[in-house]
């Protein structure tokens, strides 16, 4: 599955201490992408992201193929942030799925791309449990840490992470 990450999901995964593990899903047919605007929105995470790019766990997508007019149309249509808009525009262009932990961005992405191509970080964490990369207990602890550090995430119980 080809996935493009936004800043909210990337920061949440990093704060939950499971970003590395999630990106190791690349060995299970996941390919993770990120746009330059999102990379910039990740602030202090940028150096960490660059290491992941060098390791081949993350692909930075060039934005020179996006026209400002086309980008602005999506921006004005859904009134999201620049990074969220970039995610949706790139997902459309490269046929990617969008991973975002933002409710408004998920709604917009679903409208623009179709329901099946949008999910959040919790789904990726759960996938790690299914692939044997994390225990359900560790996954739930990561979720609780993300919530405690301000993530706008839905309430789920530990059962959600059982696979």
């Amino acid at each position: 599955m080809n996935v493009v990450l936004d800043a909210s999901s990337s920061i949440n995964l990093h704060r939950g201490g499971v970003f590395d593990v999630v990106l190791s899903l690349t060995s299970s047919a996941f390919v993770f992408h990120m746009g330059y605007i999102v990379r910039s929105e990740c602030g202090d995470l940028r150096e960490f992201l660059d290491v992941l790019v060098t390791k081949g766990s993350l692909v930075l997508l060039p934005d020179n193929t996006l026209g400002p007019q086309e980008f602005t149309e999506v921006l004005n249509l859904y009134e999201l942030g620049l990074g969220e808009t970039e995610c949706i525009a790139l997902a459309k262009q490269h046929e990617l799925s969008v991973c975002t932990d933002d409710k408004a961005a998920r709604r917009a992405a679903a409208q623009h791309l179709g329901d099946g191509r949008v999910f959040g970080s919790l789904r990726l964490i759960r996938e790690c449990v299914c692939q044997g990369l994390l225990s359900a207990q560790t996954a739930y602890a990561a979720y609780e840490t993300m919530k405690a550090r301000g993530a706008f995430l839905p309430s789920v119980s530990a059962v959600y992470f059982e696979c």
Partner: protein
Amino acid sequence: MNTDALRQLLQKRNRAKDDLLSERTGLSRERILQLETSLEPNLNELRVLADFFRVDLRDLLPPDPRHQSVGLLFRSGGKDVDEVTSSALSRRVSYSIELLGEQLVPSAVTWIDKFRREGKTYADAEHNAEVFRTVFLGGDQVSPLYRLPELAVREMGVLLFLVRSNRFEGASAYVESLPFVFLAESFGPRMLFTLAHEIGHLIGHHDPQQSFAVVDTQTEKRTLPSKNATEFYAHAFASCLLMPGSGIGITLRKIREMQKGSDKALGDLEILLLSRIYGVSFYAAARRCEDLNLLPKGGAASLNETLKKEFGSAEKRADAANLPPRADVLFPKMPPALLKAATDKVRAGEISIGKASSILGLSIADLLTANAPRMN
């Protein structure tokens, strides 16, 4: 494309730094010239140029038609207002109004009627500065006013934003009866003076019921009343508010008592001490001393230049003389009401976190942190 904004940026750039521009953006000199004159950029080019010039990418994109009326307001707010500035300010104002929604309380500016609003003389400014201290400081006509940012936000209901810009020092507006002030982040004392200057605009002449905007590129330098009476008034108001005449008198008397001082003319160190006590720059303090006839006309500019030549700056002179350090003046990064409204709306899915981050001028990481549950 907001080609005007990009072209203005490129045309006003320091051409001596073109090598640096090319190196940092990865764009060739030839390509930069093309973008300056005719060709349309792609998103990557806009992004790297926005980074280089430290402007928001949104301000180089086609303007959102919903913000155009506020944009026009800011464009008419001063002769030096460029496209990027008017776009950045109007976006913040429009989004704030949208974000506050039903929380808008147009009658919040109840203090306006307490001020004299017809005159633009120095005496009018001094009168209103005294009224301000009566209304908001219980009549204290002496003390320094480090609390002005907090007072503006909490007591006056001003939506105060700190912005990173070297294109202007301050801006103020009434839009839908809400008072807005924007301060460019810089030397604290200068920001305090700019805030007082913008409050001068808000209380001075404008009717909150009628939208207006002013953008100031230079707030400490006073224009002649014959050239721009409104700016003259706002400068005088800031000066009188931050450095009340009676306070200056008492403080100088104490300084001279401590120094067992004489009746000789006011010296640079005394003015530096005044500037540190009242939280303003040396030039602003010296200028107020001129107005109070404690310095001859032109003395402020002349002393300021002398200190720059001999010590590098007035602040360096003060440090070298071991004057007490300046008190910290805290500026809230954004209106607290907006932060709460933003996190509530992100949680409800009414706006995205990226948009909230853009409205508040806060990083996504900081906005997430602001949403973290408090431990107690």
